[in-house]
């Protein structure tokens, strides 16, 4: 049988190394290589490989985030590759998911691959998927605070928005609009949920339906009647809600880097 494999890593030599190790397996065909999480997501969805060698630390989306966003069924088998990531290793051990440490030992590679080949041939995808689901569950609950990405799929294109890149966001019913330099994006979430998710980032709620990224505030000004005006670096003006006065004052006091106030 012919097994179709995809190699995902942001370092070319690392991809070459896996490809070289795979070259001794005639039944495995490398159908492509991806340089980052976004490319990987698109390639997996469009080419539906059987097996993916997935690096964890990558630009745009990391390995876990790629898996979170995957909507193909059945999911491919995954072998994680990582040079060093204490957290990930613990998670792998915990869920008995296969991983390879870089530099890759040939013996270890052989063992991992044989195990996966057995699973693929026996179509034990369900069991593997369960393990992966548990792993992702753990990842989601302990997502690293300095990295928060929003993945938005819109008519076939995938956009990754990092929290720092959001200028401000506004709630629109069941959705929030993320305003960014790349344009506006609709994201399915409630305002309070977003506020919680972005707690570790520099956001401040200034209105019932507006959350502002303080990194992008150019200046702020007290208007009247307990309202404030915020002008963002991209010249957008936002007026705060009256009941958020205390919230805003608290922020202005702690954020002494906004001197214009």
């Amino acid at each position, binding site marked *: 049988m012919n097994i179709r494999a995809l190699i995902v890593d*942001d*370092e*070319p*030599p*690392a991809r*070459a*190394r896996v490809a*070289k190790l795979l070259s001794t397996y005639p039944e495995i065909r490398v159908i492509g290589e991806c*340089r*980052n999480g*976004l*490319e990987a997501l698109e390639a997996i969805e469009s080419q539906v490989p059987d097996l993916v060698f997935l690096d964890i*630390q990558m*630009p*745009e989306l990391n390995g876990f985030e790629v898996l979170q966003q995957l909507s193909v069924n059945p999911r491919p088998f995954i072998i994680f590759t990582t*040079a*060093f*990531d204490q957290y990930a290793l613990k998670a792998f051990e915990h869920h008995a998911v296969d991983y390879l*440490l*870089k*530099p*890759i030992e040939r013996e270890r590679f052989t063992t991992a691959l044989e195990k996966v080949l057995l699973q693929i041939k026996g179509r034990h995808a369900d069991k593997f998927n369960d393990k992966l689901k548990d792993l992702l569950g753990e990842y989601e609950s302990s997502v690293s605070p300095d990295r928060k990405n929003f993945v938005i799929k819109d008519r076939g294109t995938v956009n990754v928005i990092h929290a*720092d*890149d959001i200028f401000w966001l506004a709630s629109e019913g069941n959705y929030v609009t993320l305003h960014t*330099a790349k344009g506006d994006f609709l994201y399915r979430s409630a305002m309070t949920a977003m506020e919680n998710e972005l707690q570790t980032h*520099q956001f401040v709620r200034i209105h019932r339906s507006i959350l502002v*990224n*303080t*990194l*992008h*505030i*150019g200046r702020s000004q007290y208007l009247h009647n307990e309202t404030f005006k915020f002008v963002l*670096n991209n010249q957008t003006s936002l007026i705060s809600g009256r009941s958020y006065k205390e919230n805003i004052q608290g922020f202005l006091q702690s954020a*002494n*880097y906004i001197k214009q106030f």
Partner: protein
Amino acid sequence: MSHLSYYKIRRMNTMNNRWLPIRFIWIIASAFLLSFIFILNAYINHSYTPNQEAFDWYFEIMLVVTNYLLWAFLFPLLYRFIVTNKFAWQLSFRTILMHILLGLLIAVFHRYASLAFYIGMTWSLKGYLLDLFGIHSANMVIRGVISSMLQYWIIIGVLWGFEYYRQKRQQELLLIKTNQELADAQLNALKMQLHPHFFFNTLNTISSVMDRSVEEAQDIVAKLARLMRALLDSEKQQVITLRQEIDYIRAYLDLEQARFSDRLLVKIEVDDAVLNAGIPNLLLQPLVENSIKHGLSSQAKQGAIEIYAEMIQKDLVIKIKDNGKGVANADYVFQNPGIGIKSVLTRLKVIYQSTATIHIESSYQAGFCVIIKIPYKPLSL
């Protein structure tokens, strides 16, 4: 819109705002002790001079005690003046001139004040009033002004002694604290350097490149060795030449280039004139690493890093620039510094105090540039 953010490397606070180096009661006590000695001196002098009149204890005591008590009250003012005016306590022609003039002024004031007391005393005891601003008084002031001036200089000398001792002690305390901070900062720089992620990925690169070219792999191994050697040496040498630092950075960037191949462009331009400049070892390393981390690793596009070093007036100016995402608010970087920037700030502050500056030029999605300025000091090896 570009944000420019400055981080002022403040001089550490060595001044405390005390009015006195010792408690006032001791100053008063000293005034009385001095008075006692000089009264004794006057008495002995009087007794062994074939003399006419009896020793006038009351006048003698009042005269001497007034003299020294007046100084005791002037003491805090003079001390305050010396502590708060840096130039009042540097040894320069200007300062000496200033003290001669100020000494004269204070001596005249001191004389007149003493005289005023004296006049008050003679009036209360003998019933006649001298004219304070008359020719007779002026005569007495001129006669006493030199000794008052001498007393002024002695007091200034004593104050200098106090201040010198205090600053010396404070410097010692500061040095202990500083060395601790420096050691911490250096350790942090080292820790970043020995980041296992970088290390293992480099080993992985070597293992991969071997398939393609053994020579290329050997080059990478040699560079890794150079890096590790520099790290091991870094404990021995606090200051190295810019040439050494740049060599080291180049080795590091070569390794990153080997890892990322075509994705990283490197440009290094260093003026020959500053190659021998002394620079704290591994000072630039965390900044370069930050540029790699934020400029290259977090985005998929082609990364570029540029390093410039040149002499501007008498300073060594180093610029590290990347084409990464930048920051929307450069102040924020100094307010919430990561481990890398923090170690750089600490080392600049401790080693150069206010003679070094660091600033960041960055705006959202338009790269990040950090500029360090330190005094140029050639290092002879």
